[in-house]
């Protein structure tokens, strides 16, 4: 039923690799991809990241492609506009729609291709991170980067209870559906409102129960977060460096 990126990240082969290394690779890919002026570099980054995600991380290829289709769709529609309304230079092709003449010129074409390749490069970096690093691995990173403890603790609790309430919300929705709560627009609005208010009350109650449960285990106002040490292996470092040099040489 659920198809969350986080669920794929949890079973990824790259999950237990050093988080900082993964973050560096992603930041590098984003920066280089965006600052590149030729479409080759972002495309190279997209290919490498996609290869790493699917081959090393064992994310199903089909799922990965379907995922990539979403930003690609956006990028293509966006670059169509760019193609016809931006840039200058020699005309590449043109045609007439309802009496308007649409002209694509060389500058526009270059720009459109660059936009698409940058989108792909950037998105594949983000997907690499999202599909190899579950949220639970990121809390330690947040802590290291000096974000206040209370914010991290809150986000840990929020992360945990998102799934609890997702389940509650789904079961309420099913209960409403089987009693014809979503047959027309008016009923649907009414049902959604009920769902939302019930969920609010439930989460309020959950908060109180949570406090009880934490107190019963001697809660003293702070959550301790233990970071597991995962040293960077030499093979990983070498591979990452080769990738970085290759990407830079394409600039």
């Amino acid at each position: 039923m659920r198809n969350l990126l986080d669920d794929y990240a949890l079973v990824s082969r790259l999950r237990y690799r050093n988080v900082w290394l993964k973050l560096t690779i992603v930041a590098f890919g984003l920066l280089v991809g965006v600052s590149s002026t030729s479409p080759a570099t972002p495309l190279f980054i997209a290919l490498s990241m996609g290869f790493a995600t699917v081959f090393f991380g064992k994310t199903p290829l089909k799922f990965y492609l379907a995922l990539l289709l979403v930003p690609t769709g956006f990028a293509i529609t966006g670059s169509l506009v760019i193609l016809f309304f931006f840039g200058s230079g020699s005309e590449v092709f043109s045609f007439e729609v309802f009496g308007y003449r649409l002209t694509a010129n060389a500058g526009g074409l270059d720009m459109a291709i660059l936009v698409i390749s940058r989108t792909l490069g950037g998105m594949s970096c983000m997907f690499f991170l999202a599909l190899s690093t579950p949220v639970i691995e990121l809390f330690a990173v947040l802590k290291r980067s000096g974000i206040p403890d209370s914010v991290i603790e809150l986000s840990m609790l929020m992360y945990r209870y998102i799934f609890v309430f997702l389940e509650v919300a789904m079961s309420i929705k099913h209960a409403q559906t089987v009693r014809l709560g979503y047959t027309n627009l008016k009923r649907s609005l009414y049902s959604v409102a009920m769902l939302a208010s019930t969920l609010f009350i439930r989460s309020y109650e959950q908060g109180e129960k949570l406090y009880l449960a934490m107190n019963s285990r001697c809660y003293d106002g702070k959550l301790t977060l233990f970071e597991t040490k995962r040293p960077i292996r030499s093979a990983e470092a070498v591979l990452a460096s080769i990738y970085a040099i290759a990407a830079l040489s394409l600039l």
Partner: protein
Amino acid sequence: MPILATRDLKYTYPDGTAALDGAEIEIEEGKKIAFVGQNGLGKSTLFLLLNGTLKPGRGEVLFYGMPFKYDSKSLRNIRRRVGIVFQNSDDQIFAPTVYQDVAFGPANLGFPEDTVLERVNHTLEYVGLTHLKDKPPHHLSGGEKKRVAIAGVIAMEPEVIILDEPFSNLDPVGADEITDMLDELNHFGKTIIISTHDVDLAYGWSDYVYLLAGGMVIGRGAPDQIFGDPELLKGAGLRQPTTLEIYHEIERRGLADRNKAPRNVPELVDALKPPDLMWVRVPPGIEEGDTLNLGMMHGDYALHSPYEAVNAKVMHIHDRGWAIAEMERRGVRAGCIRIYDMAGYEPEELRKIVRDADIEVVGAMGRKSKNIAERDGMRLDIAAGVIDKAILMALCGKRCLILTNGGMVEHAMKRISDYAEKSGIEINVSMVGEGG
């Protein structure tokens, strides 16, 4: 001295309804106690009072005879020593991973990081969840979540573990696993308190029962005493345990020994007294009351073990040489129970034992033994309620092997010899392997 006790406990909800009204309890150390009553009748409230989360309106709670104090330092001490597992695991498990949730308690006790690490790893291994330690709780099944919740509490090493409805929402096998785990914890000295409305479970499992109704303790005592009293049960809105009900029905028909209170299936079977009558042909000259040796029987004619030596006591002689005789059967190849201590586990040795001792049924008891058995792909015929089932099998002439470890070995030996003593049936039980 009772480890936990209450005196004239009264607690009123903010809306004015009384959850508890004058409850008096005394919990003996090292016992398994069940609080039985209908849902929503103050069991959860009582439990929150027992670890100091709620403060009684009247009366007091005593820990080793000392009344609770409600300053933060005393409360911390109480909560460390009296752990509580909530009914809904999702209310309790809040950390994003199993590991972090189990580490929460020990970290709050202020241990250094490596002590916490050691405790968590040990606890996770104990409850058989090491392989799930990096999973988020929403990827776990109900039974696994319950085990995480229990692990979170036992990682703090409390003396008393309170579990609110630990078996609700669990499938039968999941519930059996939790029961086994509670037995194991109890065997190693923890006092276990549960609340339940499952009379069968409370009857078979506990050492002592409190019956609650209307915020009061309306009955307390040994399980056979409490559940043998239909009036008392009716007052609490409960029914008799199934084992007891079946026993009463067959006893009323004269098919079982009187005045027993079987708590589990082996004891129920043991109480049976079927008149084993049969038509036999008698040679002339035999009189009523004589005993005939019918020799060995097997197959369909042997009821309890593969081969039986059967004597017939002639009750009534009919015409033409036929007589009604009462059979006296004695199993020749009786079953047996062998216990293997997994502490000295050697795959080769175990295989040799199974082969040489002609073992037909293998069962594993305790999480650790089950894990090893699963890992090495051993076929387990019994995985839950191991001792009871092994006794039943042995009575039917099967040869059983129980895999277990540590203190559970002693526990198993004791349970079986207790049974033998109580029933008067000799069960051949011994240790096998290097450890034995």
